[in-house]
């Protein structure tokens, strides 16, 4: 047991990958075995992360459960893992969503083994980003997360998957390019990639000295933008968002769940973990621009979503809208780091990341459920399904309301905190973003109206296309999500306390 | 002009004539015999040079063995090689020119060499050239290794010749 208690993070991190490798040696064709094995393998990290959630001392400063191993001595890079309140929240989200996504993909029948393996690798990639305290390792995991997702979209996606997966890959790779360069710049300058050490070195640089023939402020500005663009693409911040609807729409259901639930958070996490601590000055300087883009994402995301006729695309655009609030919170925090307003905004932004993980994953899953039964995503072809599938309808309404930000459910808390935090700092942007909040309601209601209400499309009522009710497995996927949505909505203190303390210590 | 010189000139002229006949005569059998004549001339030259062992070997190996081989070979391949057709190829003129050029070059080199006017030193009284040669060939300090290699070469050539010429019918 000693081993487990001293290696929590590496166990969580590498268990899925090891399980995936092990899966390679399982006999082929045993689809059922693969499914249950993958589910089991993803549940173990979840249980471990729940266990560290309870062991975590939210009041203690710095990173906890730290582990450090030699990795690439010549470059001064080590495999340094550790979590604080911010990353722990994300780790919990990831380990929660992965088993659910795997459970959601039990209906996959093609190439099950490869599919499940990719999912497990994906989990390791995502967890690695959240856990690593070494920039080089961070980057490695950042890219590791990309590849399985590419294949998931490309192999198990729907009609336009080639275009979407290529767009996704190239777009994100394009962003990573700058990220890698910026990381190299830091590494070359300081001879270490360790985040903790870097933060100290970096912020203590004299602004009038020169680095590589440029002034420090120039170097910092360049590195800032390299980081910012990479993360902005991942978040995605308007106008870098157009890969998202394509990728989400074409990805398999579980892929969209993870994509919206976790992968988007990588970008926001990058902002919080790297940009704000490393570039406080630049973040303040560019906060206005960031807020403008965030507002654009909120408003235009909502409007675009409203204009969709494809259910999944509508949900995909809603991610742009929701992540806009995260960015708005980050912008506010960048503008006035350390003030109570900024703290509130950041609390909201981080909680919004978690909440969006829940609600977006839920929404995509529900879209998947209906798509699997009807083989259409066109809103015009649904109608009146509430009568046929009341349970599904109820769940859909519940999840939509969470996404809409109905008070009493999780989305409201975080949106309110963001609005509250950014109001005194970025008043005008906050006001304009309210327009987006309004249209959030509009598109959610549009979707509900087209899917559940409306005249019953008789096609689904009888005969071969008869719509079947959501089944037990699918309810099992939704149940934890809905429980958390309600729980956070009614009593957010349990998670917000951890986030808050982390934010207080970080900034 | 001393007797030595006259003898040398006679032998050399004979040898050269014989050699010339070797390369020009149409009949290969005759050429082979002319070769024997030329080889005798060379053996005589060896004798003049006091290389008695070489002279003996020249007679025994060349004339006794190699020339015989030639004659046998000529006879074995003689069927359509009687006297018909030219014995020289189309480029014989150019060949002759080159040979002449080579000769001219060699003469030029010899002519320009300072040591060309050397005279032969007197034999040391107790010097036994044949014995010294024999010692040198088998002495570990001297040439036993090249000697052995040469013998291996001969064996290899022997086996190779047998193999190549063996009629596998």
């Amino acid at each position, binding site marked *: 047991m000693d081993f487990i208690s001293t290696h929590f993070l590496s166990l969580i991190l590498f268990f899925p990958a090891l399980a995936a490798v092990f899966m390679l040696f399982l006999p082929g064709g045993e689809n059922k075995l693969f499914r249950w094995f993958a589910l089991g393998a993803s549940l173990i990290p979840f249980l471990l992360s729940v266990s560290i959630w309870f062991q975590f001392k939210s009041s203690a400063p710095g990173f906890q459960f730290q582990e450090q191993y030699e990795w690439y001595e010549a470059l001064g890079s080590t495999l340094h893992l550790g979590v604080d309140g911010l990353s722990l929240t994300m780790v919990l989200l990831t380990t929660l969503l992965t088993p659910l996504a795997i459970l959601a993909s039990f209906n996959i029948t093609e190439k099950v083994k490869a599919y499940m393996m990719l999912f497990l690798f994906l989990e390791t990639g995502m967890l690695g980003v959240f856990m690593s305290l070494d920039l080089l390792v961070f980057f490695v995991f950042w890219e590791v997360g990309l590849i399985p997702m590419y294949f998931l979209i490309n192999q198990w996606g729907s009609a336009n998957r080639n275009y979407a997966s290529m767009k996704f890959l190239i777009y994100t790779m394009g962003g990573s390019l700058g990220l890698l360069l910026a990381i190299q710049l830091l590494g070359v300058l300081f001879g270490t990639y360790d985040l903790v050490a870097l933060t100290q070195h970096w912020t203590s640089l004299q602004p009038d000295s020169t680095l590589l023939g440029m002034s420090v402020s120039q170097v910092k500005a360049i590195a800032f933008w390299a980081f910012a663009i990479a993360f902005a693409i991942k978040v995605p911040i308007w106008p870098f968002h*157009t890969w998202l609807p394509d990728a989400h729409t074409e990805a398999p259901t579980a892929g969209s769940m993870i994509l919206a639930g976790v992968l988007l958070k990588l970008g926001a996490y990058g902002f919080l973990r790297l940009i704000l601590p490393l570039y406080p000055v630049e973040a303040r300087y560019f906060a206005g621009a960031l807020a403008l883009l965030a507002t654009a994402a909120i408003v235009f995301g909502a409007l675009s979503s*409203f204009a969709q006729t494809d259910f999944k695309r509508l949900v995909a655009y809603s991610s742009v809208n929701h992540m806009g609030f995260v960015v708005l919170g980050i912008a506010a925090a960048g503008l006035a780091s350390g003030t109570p307003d900024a703290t509130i905004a950041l609390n909201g932004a981080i909680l919004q990341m978690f909440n969006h993980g829940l609600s977006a994953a839920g929404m995509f899953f529900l879209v998947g459920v209906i798509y699997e039964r009807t083989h259409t995503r066109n809103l015009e072809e649904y109608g009146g399904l*509430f009568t046929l599938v*009341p349970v599904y309808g109820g769940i859909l309404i519940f999840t939509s309301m969470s996404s809409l930000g109905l*008070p009493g459910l999780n989305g409201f808390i975080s949106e309110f905190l963001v609005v509250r935090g950014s109001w005194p700092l970025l008043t005008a942007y*906050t006001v304009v973003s309210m327009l987006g909040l*309004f249209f959030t309601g509009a598109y959610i*209601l549009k979707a509900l109206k087209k899917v559940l209400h409306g005249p019953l499309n008789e096609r689904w009522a009888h005969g071969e296309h008869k719509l079947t009710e959501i089944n037990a497995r699918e309810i099992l996927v939704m149940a934890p999500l809905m429980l958390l949505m309600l729980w956070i909505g009614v*009593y*957010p203190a349990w998670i917000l306390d951890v986030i808050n303390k982390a934010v207080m210590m970080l900034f | 002009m001393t007797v030595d010189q006259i003898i040398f000139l006679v032998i050399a002229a004979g040898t050269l004539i014989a050699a010339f006949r070797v390369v020009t005569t149409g009949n290969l059998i005759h050429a082979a015999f002319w070769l024997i004549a030329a080889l005798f001339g060379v053996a005589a030259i060896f004798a003049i040079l006091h290389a008695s062992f070489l002279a003996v070997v020249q007679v025994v190996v060349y004339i006794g063995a190699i020339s015989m081989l030639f004659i046998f070979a000529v006879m074995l391949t003689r069927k359509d090689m009687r006297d018909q057709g030219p014995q020289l190829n189309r480029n014989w003129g150019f060949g002759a020119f080159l040979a002449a050029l080579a000769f001219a070059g060699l003469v030029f080199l010899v002519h320009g060499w300072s040591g060309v006017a050397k005279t032969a030193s007197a034999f040391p009284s107790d010097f036994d050239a044949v014995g010294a040669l024999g010692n040198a060939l088998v002495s570990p300090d001297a040439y036993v290794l090249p000697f052995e290699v040469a013998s291996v070469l001969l064996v290899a050539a022997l086996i190779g010749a047998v193999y190549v010429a063996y009629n596998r019918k």
Partner: protein
Amino acid sequence: MSTETIIWLIPLPPALAFFLIVLFTNRNKALSHTIAIGAALLSWLGSMIVFARALGVERLGERPFTSSINWLATGDTWFKIGVLVDPLTALTLFFVAWTVLMIFIYSVGYHNFGQPEGDHDHKGLPPHGATVEEHGSKHVVPSVEPMYSRFFAFIGLFAFGMFTLVVSDNLLTLFVGWEIMGLCSYLLIGFWYGKKSARDAAVKAFMTTRIGDVFMLLGIAYLYSVTGALSFREIFTETTLHTLQIIPSGVLGFSTAGLIGLLLFIGTVGKSAQFPLHVWLPDAMEGPTPVSAMIHAATMVSAGVYTVIRMFPLLSLDTQTMSVIAFIGAFTALFAATIALAQNDIKRVLAYSTISQLGFMIAALGIGAYIAAVFHLITHAFFKALLFLGSGSVIHGMEHGVFHTGKHEVDPQDMFNMGGLKNKMPITFWTFLIGGFALSGFPIVTAGFWSKDEILADAFAHNLPVFLTLAVAAFLTAFYTMRQITLTFLGEPRTEEARHAHETPWTMTIPLIILSVFAIGFGWIGIPEHFPLLGGLVPNWLHEFVGGTLAEHPEAVEFSWTPLLTSLVVALGGLGLGYLFYRNVNSPAEDKLQLGFLKNKYYVDEIYNAVFVKPAIWFADKVVYQIMDKGFIDGILHLFGPGTQGIGDGIRNYFDLPFINRFLGDGSANVTYFSGEKLRVIQTGRIQQYLMLALILFLAIGAILYFFVFSV
């Protein structure tokens, strides 16, 4: 149990009922409504206990019941949520608990519990009736609602929202309850989602109120960031209020308090259906008639007014804001009253009258008549609930007639199809009459008179234009109410259906009777002290009780005959004229007030549609999605593809192919080939020629070495 614990528990039973019904009992109708009504009863009980205990506390306004817990971590501090019962809350709890309980009971009858399943009923559509065989003859009777259980779940959630809103001690949880009600109203209006009108109305209601909500959320955020608190007790301290008053907001000369107040007030405008966001309320009548409509009209909309009353200390800091409120209220009161004149649908008349009456309250608040507003809020809740339930009863009775004749095209809600129902449905008639008179402000006996009179008196004392507007509105109110009563109940039945209308079951009439008691009696708690004859007989308890909510005790206005006479004249005059006008009117054609612009509600819907809705949809689809995202951003992205390909092609066509391939690649091959081609002639295969060449080379090299290298 301590009072605080009870207060915490009040909202919970309906929420529990909601989850229980949704998760477990939705297949069992009897169990579902038992749970729901049981929950409502528990909440009612809790409210009554709290109310009773509140009455027993001296100077409750200064020492309210409070309790709070940590909820949100915000930096160093916690955002707390909690409950608060002060006089305003206690009174509101009282009427909310009563009306909610009545609605729950009434719904059982309204949704035809105990009736057979319908022949062709579908979920999402109103029941069409069932054929039964009785005594050898077939006839159609009302059929039970197919989604009976779901309805109770929804109103359970609704009750939860309302109770949460009322007992909250802070704006945030108030907002939570507010939005939950918004969701419920969406769900209930769209309850019969099979009907297009219901669907559209649901979305419209949600979106219209959301406009207000969004502003309200801003107001909350603003207030929170300025004061660092959202709890009423913390905001309404003198220093905080003073700070809010003196800091300018920088917008149009409003003080911070003024701007916050205005933002919050916009929320109320949405929720309480004030002009210009009133459009959703009439359409909301598409909900299951009239129960959900009554929820929207009598209970939920009062939440808006309740909030304004709650925030009154803040709002009253800025006179500009107060003027806006007064103007909107007065304008709405008159505006809605004129539209109500020309409506033929029994529920729509009530809907517009609700808007109008809410306008009264808002106007009263705008002129500072805080207690009058509270008074009218309570009396209105009772009599409007009564009226809606009564109209529901009428419609239900009419549906009975429709089932009897089998002519489904007859609209059971059109008042011109009714007439003479007085004898068919006596209980409904008398209770409706009480409600109608209370609405009109029939002097002395009805509660509506006292509250409305107080508003007029305050308006007269503070603001003459508002007084005049409200007076006209009050006259119109009496007039259209009497029109409604006359057309519905008096005269002769105008249709076969009306002739066969039937009194409704006891589950529906009992609530009517209980509510009518309140509609009369509740006025007596607030008789002004100086009222002629009656003044002082009963102490003006309301004024004392509610007045204690505020820090400074408001002065009662001086008694004046002018407003009293005015209210007498407008009430009696309106009622009288209404009866005279419509006594003999039998069809819409004979109705002289069926004016186009009134009938079409001043074309507000059409204008909104043309100015906001369509451009928004167009903008979202065409500009943002098609042009910006698909065209511009993706266009640029797609340029990367061809761009990269172009560069690639360029490099290939102008560098790789000519230079690398043809020149270097093919070129060297060609040179080799060519030279090989030329040189191969020397590969004669003739050994002597090789030898010659070698010799030539040897000689040449030898010569060169000799002459040029070794000679040096």
